């Protein structure tokens, strides 16, 4: 799998992070406070999750006064949607290797 897809997968492997991302994607831009109210975890925890999402380019932020607003970048999901294509290439390659092995097993 490609490194980009791995970043996205890793960022979204955590259910809380996935919920935060999903909420931003569904409801649009929100402040850290608003996200904290709905997430069931502390604000520092939400901020940490947002940092991971930001690194994976899944969210963008802007500051306005004392509040930081986050919004989703659903385009960043593209590598994940390509997941099966990555695996398609992977398995075709492994099938070739399997056939090579079978040839060698004859000898």
């Amino acid at each position: 799998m490609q490194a980009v897809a791995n970043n996205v997968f890793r960022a979204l492997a955590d259910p809380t992070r996935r919920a935060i991302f999903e909420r931003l994607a569904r409801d649009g831009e929100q402040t850290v406070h608003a996200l904290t109210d709905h997430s069931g975890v502390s604000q520092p925890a939400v901020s940490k999750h947002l940092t991971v999402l930001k690194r994976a380019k899944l969210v963008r932020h802007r500051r306005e006064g004392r509040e930081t607003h986050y919004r989703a970048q659903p385009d960043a999901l593209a590598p994940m949607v390509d997941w099966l294509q990555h695996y398609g290439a992977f398995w075709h390659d492994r099938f070739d290797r399997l056939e090579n092995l079978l040839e060698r097993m004859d000898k």
Partner: protein
Amino acid sequence: MTTTATSRTLVIEREMPHPQEKIWRALTEGKLIEEWLMKNDFQPVVGHRFSFRATPVPNWNGVIESEVLVVEPKSRLSYGWGTLGLESVVTWTLTPTEGGTHVRMEHSGFPSEEGANYKGAKYGWQKFISNMERVAGGLE
């Protein structure tokens, strides 16, 4: 490759000019598996938990967690394929043909059992992906 709204499955099929028994060995003997797939501690025993290990890369430890789900000697083998929080299933089916064996591999990406591999998670990848596809679709 087939894709539906609720599940995604990758299917690869090939006719191989080798007897079924021999292909079964390549699929189920640890040392042979390593030669074409990955390092592993596989045992052809239902319920056996094992892992495949690839070379780690940045952001991926190279480990695929697995459990043997089905062993029907010489004809069917199925195991879990869990990595990066995403649980999937790989199933091999061998069918004898005139010139050898028909090999079918099915990799089901998103099992219907929601969130089975996330303790405490309220939903799994399947729901997430379908939600995201809606969001992405709405953007276009």
